[in-house]
């Protein structure tokens, strides 16, 4: 059997009349009529993504201003020219995908999982190229502090980002949470690059980069919790009927 014949069968089956009761349609129309009023549609993607980039930049800068710009001061020109533009590009990419995750029917250029992988690998590549000090002094004790500091800045960045585009609607809250986490994580990495003067390769590669997957996991967990609560409360309502 050829594909054209299957097409033919599908077309004939699809052409079969499909009647929907007029009262069903009327009920739908009646249900929306009382609250029908003019609404303002969401702004273009680039406006919302631009707002998200500004939020991330603000969180990174405020965090680094409070802790000190020691990392930025220690960096040479090449390091500054590679690290920060790379971060801006990744933040822009994550911001665009976050906006797409909050608008139904958006065309996804990259899946959330691929975004997480790409952001992590890109950061690893830039850090591996720039930082060549292979000593590992106080690897865990200092590393955990940086990971926590980055994560604690990822949280406000993701929350403020969500507040900015809260008028959107996530058709998949777990994936939207994951993308928000990646975005927040990149803001956290931005703060660490501005602040942390520890340029040991292992430290930067492991603990700075780890902020992104950690924040993404936390974001996905929040998304899952929201969905779980939503279905649980619906279930409880159903059980009490």
């Amino acid at each position, binding site marked *: *059997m050829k*594909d054209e*014949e*299957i*097409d*033919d*069968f*599908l*077309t*004939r*089956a*699809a*052409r*079969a009349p*499909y*009647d*929907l009761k007029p009262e*069903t*349609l009327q*009920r*739908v*129309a009646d*249900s*929306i*009529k009382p*609250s*029908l*009023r*003019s*609404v*303002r*549609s*969401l702004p*273009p993607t680039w406006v919302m993504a631009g707002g998200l980039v500004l939020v991330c930049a603000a969180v990174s800068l405020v965090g680094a201003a409070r802790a000190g710009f020691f990392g930025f001061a220690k960096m040479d020109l090449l390091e500054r020219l590679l690290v920060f533009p790379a971060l801006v590009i990744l933040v822009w990419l994550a911001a665009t995908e976050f906006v797409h995750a*909050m*608008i*139904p*029917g*958006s*065309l*996804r250029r990259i*899946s959330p999982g691929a975004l997480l992988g790409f952001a992590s690998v890109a950061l690893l590549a830039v850090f591996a190229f720039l930082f060549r000090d292979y000593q590992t002094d106080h690897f865990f004790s200092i590393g955990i502090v940086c990971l926590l500091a980055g994560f604690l800045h990822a949280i406000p960045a993701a929350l403020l980002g969500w507040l900015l585009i809260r*008028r*959107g*609607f996530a*058709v*998949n809250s777990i*994936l939207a949470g994951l993308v928000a986490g990646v975005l927040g994580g990149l803001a956290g990495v931005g703060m660490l690059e501005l602040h942390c003067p520890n340029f040991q390769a292992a430290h930067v590669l492991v603990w700075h980069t780890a902020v992104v997957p950690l924040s993404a996991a936390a974001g996905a967990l929040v998304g899952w919790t929201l*969905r779980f609560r*939503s*279905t*649980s409360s*619906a*279930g409880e309502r*159903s*059980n009490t009927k």
Partner: protein
Amino acid sequence: MQPDSNLDALMARYQQGDFDAATDMIERISPQLHRLFLAHSQSRLDADDLLQETWLRIHKVRHTYRPGEPALPWFYAIARHVRVDHYRKSVRTAIGERQLEAMSEEVATAPGESDHTDGLSALLAPLSASQREVIEMLKVVGMSLEEVARATSSSVGSVKQKVHRAYKKLRETMSAAGFSKGQSGGLS
């Protein structure tokens, strides 16, 4: 298979609070959505509920549609969300509602209520839920590959792969069942 541009214009008017445009859209989109729900649910009653729930959700988030963007994928993305959400809710409430569920199954299979013998549903029955969904959007609704990708929050490549696998399965099933060109095979 209706042109999408008119739908985009209706959607813009709906956002302005035009009830006639809303009614026109309900009449145009609802049969397609209902058919999609019926293919995935237990009964016409379930499909009716899902349709109502979908329109309430569409109404609530109608500001997320942006003029100039294709409207059909936007509708189907929301409908898909409502259907998946409904499925999760039913799974979560299944344990506490076994008796009620048994009753609803009786209702669902009562004569005159079930439409599972619909030709298209029967033809697509061997496919997985995601393959069925993609084939319905492409072949029944008449969406393009990009529109299906938008509606299912996936890439065009992923949609192509699902279509390829679905056709392979359909080819095997229909050949085994002895379908041939010019034969309706109980499809209509």
